[in-house]
């Protein structure tokens, strides 16, 4: 049984060769691929017979492959094909927690944007820049080598933040020196 293709506008089911939606009469372009007709692969773990190795996580299931990271025996349910290797779910979770799978992150914090905002936005209310400029510098140097965007790997925000911070702190020092000299 294949999944149904539907019009994006009115959700009416459409054929894979349709050019007009039968429901809303909107021009439609459907591109179906072989995965649409493929039956989903369901991992069926056979029970372990006497003398056979069992899965580490499900001892009653037959082990089919060892994990390429930790060596634990895995059944068909626990085996994960991970970039051409067999991994167990716990190895994936541990690697994700330790940041070794940074290329598979679902969320990344943009520290460069935070540092730049901390340097620029307080200029609207400039007296607080004596606090926010050092904070921006701290964020810049603390997170300089932290993973940034997956798709745009540049640090211009950090450089711009440093520039703004230096100018703001320089202005504060100049103001302080000026006031002290007037005393």
């Amino acid at each position, binding site marked *: 049984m294949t*999944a149904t*293709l*539907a*019009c*994006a*506008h009115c959700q009416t089911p*459409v054929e*894979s060769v349709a050019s007009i*939606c039968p429901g*809303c009469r*909107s*021009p*439609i*372009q*459907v*591109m*179906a*691929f*072989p*995965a*649409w*007709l493929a039956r*989903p692969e369901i991992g069926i773990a056979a029970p372990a017979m006497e003398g056979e190795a069992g899965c580490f996580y499900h001892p009653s299931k037959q082990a089919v492959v060892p994990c390429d990271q930790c060596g634990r025996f895995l059944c068909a349910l626990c085996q994960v094909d991970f970039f051409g290797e067999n991994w167990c779910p716990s190895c994936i979770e541990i690697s994700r927690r330790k940041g*070794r*799978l*940074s*290329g*598979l*992150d*679902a*969320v*990344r*914090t*943009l520290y460069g*944007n*935070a540092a730049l*905002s901390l340097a620029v936005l307080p200029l609207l209310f400039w007296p607080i820049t004596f606090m926010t400029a050092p904070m921006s510098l701290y964020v810049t140097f603390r997170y300089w080598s932290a993973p940034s*965007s*997956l*798709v745009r*790997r540049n640090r211009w925000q950090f450089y711009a933040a440093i520039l703004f911070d230096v100018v703001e702190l320089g202005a504060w020092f100049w103001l302080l020196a000026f006031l002290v000299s007037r005393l």
Partner: protein
Amino acid sequence: MTPVAYRRLPGLAVAPFRRQTLWMGPDHVLSVRTLPFSEHYRRYYFSDIQAIVLTESGSPMAYYLYASAVFLLLMFLLLGYTWHPVWATLCGIAGAVLLTLGLRVPNCACYLQTATGVVRLPSLGRLRAARKTLAILKAAIEASQGRLT
């Protein structure tokens, strides 16, 4: 893990403090939702994509914006001709803004179907960009899965 090299695909959806773009990796397409201080990613592997459906949906809002822009640009010319520079400038700026907004109104919707569900690709809201992107994606998916016969 070595960093994956991504190539930007045509199409962009912009909302206040949020933008969505599509990027193509070696074996997947990456949907990126950018907020002011974070980026959120979703990966759709070429081998998992079952279908892509593109529906044209002309919105009347675009025509209202175009009509208003044309009216304001005519006012700009008229006021400029009668030597009212301030009002002419204001009408010109407003007309240009409305024209830009009209060009950004989505005129199509694109959905991507996998075995786990159907997701909308907000960045493919303009027909021209959507067609360009889908041509690139179709070639990559067919290279991964083959053609449906």
